[in-house]
């Protein structure tokens, strides 16, 4: 009956600067909450919208059409042996993943302020759940993109197996950048305005609407943007290697990603203990 005293866990100690000790263990213990938070956001979004899941399709379809029109028809960019809309769609997949995750992570803490000031849990769960939400949206789009590619005559190859690597890469870029924004937004609400601004620029400096292998002079510059390699990687996987992959760019991109992510985590953890006081 009194068995709890036999397996009594070590006492919890609260002291200034001591939250560190339990952090990663708690993160694991609260893993179910991560799922619940993501589930809540997905569910709420589709409950409020009359068209539901259709939004995940309509928006990229319109964007595909627009970007094809601008880059292919107006700017006369070449598509090579790939139908241009498919080229754009394969680029939009990682871009949607990134922009969804980045803006979600960026606003996650402020949007969950009521939770943060009332309950304890590792705060990192909040931005992580935003990444999960963006990932689910991308899966929906991927389920449409794959049959579309087959219709256009591009059959799946073994390269698809590498796709998870680029999906993870894209999410890490978004998480790294988003952690900075969300932690800064807690203190300075100005950073809310930075996200849409960065995304507006991003859609043009990331090769979403064009191919980099036809722009050799610009490749190294474009590779400084960590998303460039992710977009190229997505295309290489989805389009059966019909586009060229730039290895040097990938290393550069991974280095930038690691820098963003480690810095973002460091800043987030550093400011985390003040969130409840400041938010």
């Amino acid at each position, binding site marked *: 009956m009194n068995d709890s005293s036999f397996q009594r866990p070590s*006492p*919890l100690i*609260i002291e200034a600067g001591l939250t560190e000790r339990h952090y990663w263990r708690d993160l694991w213990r609260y893993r179910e*909450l991560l799922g619940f938070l993501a589930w*809540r956001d997905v569910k709420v979004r589709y409950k409020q919208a009359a068209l539901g899941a259709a939004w995940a399709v309509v928006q990229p379809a319109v964007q595909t059409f627009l970007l094809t029109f601008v880059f292919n028809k107006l700017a006369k960019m070449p598509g090579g042996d790939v139908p241009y809309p498919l080229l754009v769609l394969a680029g939009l997949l990682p871009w949607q993943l990134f922009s969804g995750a980045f803006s979600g992570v960026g606003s996650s803490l402020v949007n969950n302020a*009521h939770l943060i000031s*009332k309950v*304890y849990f590792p705060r990192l769960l909040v931005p992580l759940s935003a990444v999960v939400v963006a990932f689910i949206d991308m899966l929906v789009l991927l389920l449409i993109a794959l049959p579309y590619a087959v219709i256009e005559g591009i059959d799946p190859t073994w390269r698809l197996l590498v796709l998870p690597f680029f999906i993870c890469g894209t999410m890490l870029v978004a998480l790294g950048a988003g952690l900075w924004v969300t932690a800064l937004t807690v203190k*300075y*609400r100005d950073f809310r305005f930075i996200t849409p601004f960065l995304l507006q620029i991003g859609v043009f400096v990331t090769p979403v609407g064009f191919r980099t292998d036809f722009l050799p002079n610009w490749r190294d510059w474009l590779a400084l943007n960590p998303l460039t390699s992710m977009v190229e990687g997505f295309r290489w996987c989805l389009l059966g290697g019909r586009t060229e992959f730039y290895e040097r760019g990938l290393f550069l991109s991974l280095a930038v990603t690691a820098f963003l992510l480690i810095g973002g985590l460091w800043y987030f953890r550093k400011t985390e203990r003040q969130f409840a006081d400041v938010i």
Partner: protein
Amino acid sequence: MSEPAIMVEGLGKRYTLHHQARTGLLRDTLAALLRNPFRHGEATRATEEEFWALRDVNFSVNQGDVVGIIGRNGAGKSTLLKILSRITEPTTGRITIQGRIASLLEVGTGFHGELSGRENIFLNGAILGMTRMEIRKKFDEIVAFSEVEKFLDTPVKHYSSGMYVRLAFAVAAHLEPEILIVDEVLAVGDIAFQKKCLGKMREVATEQGRTVLFVSHNLPSVRQLCRTAMLLANGRVVSVGPCAKVLEIYQHGLTGATPIAVPPPTPDLLDRAYTTKIEIETLDCAPTAVLQVGCPWRARVGFRVVSAQHNFVVSIGLKSADGTSIQTAWLPPQDLAPGEYAAEFVQDRVALEAGAYTVLVGLSESDRGLQQFEAARIDFSGEGAAGYYAGTSGFGFVLNSMQTSLRKL
């Protein structure tokens, strides 16, 4: 004796108040940096002020204790609970906690209006630290306790506030931690449900032997629930001990407060009617905040009527220190022309028990409330009052107000 469930040593929490930077705007930080690029640190320090929400707090709570934490607003109760719940970090000191701890600082944290009751049970449970398995196991019990079976699949935004609170408390009540921290949750819901919540909390505390920390302004529920109480004031522990004793110290302290001034009228009242003055005095016109038990007294409410008022009612109410409404008195509704008025309320028939009371003043017109506020605190003292007890008698608020007679048969 078992080891303490909670041990708090030298706990302090400092907040820094920024006087100049009114908001956390990047612009302000940048501007300060530009003005003083090399002395940024010093420049900001000059405009900051330290504020200790908690200072040198020491106490320990034994396993199975039910401790009420009381104190006025701003005494540091909420800060203490936030630190114990690990929402915010202490600045100094150390807390050692034995056992699984769960805190309930708000009813329905994380409830989402768009989600159904069923979905919110799972979400809220997860937020409060339950696993999916635990929630599933307790699900039927939670639903039964909340009494919202019929609306389980309705989005909670369509719930009445009572249903919402019931569901939220039900989830929290089934948490089953070894240590439960509860803040002021009983301030919501109807009386019947409040009773049910109190009952549940008592069950958790006494039958299951859990440790409970309970913060409330509702002194009767603290009295009912807790054996021990702790009084906080200005971030320090003033008194710890048996509940009744600490409550008495608290209630006594309340009477020392200066009377609350008449609040300035809100703009919409300026061209209608508003209170200008309130005075509490004995019948020989000596203004006082301390009255003897059984001594007749008078409240005088001065008010200004700016535009003609119909069915105008002036009323005063009396509340005990623990928030219980004792009585209300009002003048018959009448039509009033613009001008200055003074209404008088005389209490010469009923003797109230010794203790602290709050006087409320209300103005209304044609059943529409114009103004209502807590006007003053008065204290009835039994000292030197013939025929009454010096302290709180416990015989009820109204003393000896019936006609009595004795006949030899």
